[in-house]
């Protein structure tokens, strides 16, 4: 055997026993800390799960999954889901998602809900086709799955509850045409990968076809990141100072207060999806002209009610349930905000 091989093949005797022995003492401490934390964090929930008096019906555990925990729009869905669970009385909601919209992490959590055997899953899909497999697996295993906000239409999910994205995209395109008199440069903003956003974008493009003088100069992918949308708007405005209108098929630019600062509203209009705060303030200050509102609270409550119904043997009438949208402009923003307050308090 020649030298190089010989050098590598010299065996060694490990002698790290002494160091290793010392590790043992600490391990118990670590586990104690984990245990203390976990029970501290979750102890109160266990009490809530215990049935009060005689159990009225079988208790159900439904996993409700938004795309991510860091998108403020989903907090209203959580309010809705928990309210519906309370009204139903025999439902516990597990509200869970990755912190940011990471399709793979969402898949991992979804798969873990299946192996854990929850009683139902309501999910807003970050990446539709990636989730077809686990959704089908869940349905095959007898766990009903409904989608909300963002559908997975090629999966076996039992129902979808949310806006008709194509239609709402068309509405956005029409509103943009009204604002600009049907001409000028258009910049689109989206996140690639999500089915609902793609369909909204198709709707926008479809309606813009009717206005040949409106030209789409750029389609930006902002990856579900509000901070990135601010950056894109700033660079977009310096690249196209004569832009007539922005159309954002998601609410990222209006989730933060200063993303729209580089825009001169006299020259460039902004049509944006979503109406959650602080978006109405931006509407009032004139930075945005049209907002398209979804049924945010319904995102949580309706899928939970659907799942509870399925559990009791009532299958949804249609596969795709259109929630409708609210078109909010300067003229009706005050009435809309009044309504919002009622929603937040749990009134219809």
């Amino acid at each position, binding site marked *: 055997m020649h030298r190089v091989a010989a050098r590598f093949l010299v065996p*060694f005797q490990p002698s790290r026993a002494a160091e290793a*022995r010392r*590790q043992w003492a600490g*391990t*118990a401490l670590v586990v104690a800390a984990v245990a203390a934390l976990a029970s501290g*964090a979750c102890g109160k929930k266990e009490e809530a799960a215990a049935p009060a008096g005689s159990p009225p019906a079988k208790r159900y555990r439904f996993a409700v999954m938004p795309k991510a925990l860091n998108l403020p729009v989903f907090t209203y869905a959580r309010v809705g889901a928990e309210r519906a669970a309370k009204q139903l009385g025999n439902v516990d909601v597990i509200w869970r998602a990755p912190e940011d919209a990471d399709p793979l992490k969402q898949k991992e959590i979804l798969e873990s809900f299946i*192996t*854990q*055997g929850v009683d139902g899953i309501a999910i807003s899909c970050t990446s539709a086709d990636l989730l077809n497999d686990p959704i089908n697996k869940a349905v095959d295993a007898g766990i009903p799955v409904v989608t909300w906000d963002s559908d997975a239409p090629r999966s076996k999910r039992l129902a979808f509850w949310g806006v008709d994205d194509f239609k709402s995209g068309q509405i956005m395109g029409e509103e943009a045409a009204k604002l600009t008199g049907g001409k000028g440069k258009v910049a689109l903003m989206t996140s*690639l990968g999500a089915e609902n956003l793609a369909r909204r974008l198709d709707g926008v493009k479809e309606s813009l076809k009717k206005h040949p003088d409106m030209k789409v100069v750029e389609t930006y992918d902002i990856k579900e990141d509000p901070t990135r949308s601010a950056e894109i708007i700033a660079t977009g405005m310096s690249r196209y100072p004569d832009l007539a209108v922005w159309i954002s098929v998601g609410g990222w630019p209006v989730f933060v207060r200063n993303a729209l600062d580089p825009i001169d509203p006299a020259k460039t209009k902004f049509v944006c999806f979503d109406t959650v705060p602080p978006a109405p303030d931006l509407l009032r200050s004139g930075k945005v002209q049209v907002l398209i509102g979804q049924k945010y609270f319904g995102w949580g409550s309706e899928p939970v009610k659907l799942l509870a119904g399925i559990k009791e043997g009532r299958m949804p009438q249609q596969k795709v349930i259109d929630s409708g949208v609210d078109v909010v402009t300067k003229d009706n923003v005050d009435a809309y905000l009044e309504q919002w307050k009622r929603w937040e308090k749990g009134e219809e």
Partner: protein
Amino acid sequence: MNARLKSLWKTRELSTLFVLALEVAFFTWYLWPEAGRSHPFFNLGNLVLILKYSALYGIAAIGAAMVIISGGVDLAPGAVMALAGVVTGHIFVIQGHPLSVGVASGIVAGLLCGIVSALLVVAVKLPPFIATLGVMGIARGIAFIITEGRFFDLSSRLPAGWKPFGLPADWLAPIVLVVLAAVFQYLMQRFQWGRAIFAIGGNETAALFSGIRVGRVKASVYIVAAVLASLSGVILVVIQGQGRADLATGYELDIIASSVVGGASLTGGRGSVVGAVLGTLIFGVLRNALPQIPGATFYDRLIVGVVVVVIVVVDQFIARKGA
């Protein structure tokens, strides 16, 4: 036999294994189901699930642990995973070559990343943190250039119910992980190359004077780490069926944390491959079990952070006391 058993008992990895066992025992107890339900955590399907996802971190963590033992740090594995996955997707889906060619190309992409890291660290003498930070940006950047924000749908070209080597696809990553962990643990403990890595991490000057070819060994460590990361990325896109440039974003820190929890010291010279793999399992169990607890959603980041800090603090405390 008795002596061997005794030396096994004393190895550092066993305390990590012990933490893992206690963790599993805790969640098995805490998540004990009400009558008539199957156990949500302690079941075979869930075990495979934990292994499958942990393995994606674990394969890369083997390399990361070796880099850390050599006294360096590698920030690139997440980006290298994404690049390797995207290259595999491009060759397989867009160019229509066989999967084996795609996989090989993905690993070659990882190899090139490793060579760049190694050159920057060894020849240019950049601090590993900066060198691999640069490679991280370059790898992620190339991945985005290749995909242009789209994704490559590998699942459309793989047959439904595809079984690599006759095994369920979910088992692929865990099997690769176990084999690689065993091989590299053996190399690190029983071979001169492995001992040289420990020596360099412990005291580079002393290693140099004792005749170790420091530059070569260090370069090999970065290259091996990048190849392992690319292997993990290739497996990721094959079993997930999607090649995307934003895959595995931020995984580098989870991978480094796993190595450290598994006993690696960021100052070098200490650690183990098997420890790093067990570290990824500790995180894998947390990622799997915490979602099963209603109301824990906003606590799990805190819990994971505290676990890292406590394990490492205790580790250091014991090391200092023993010294």
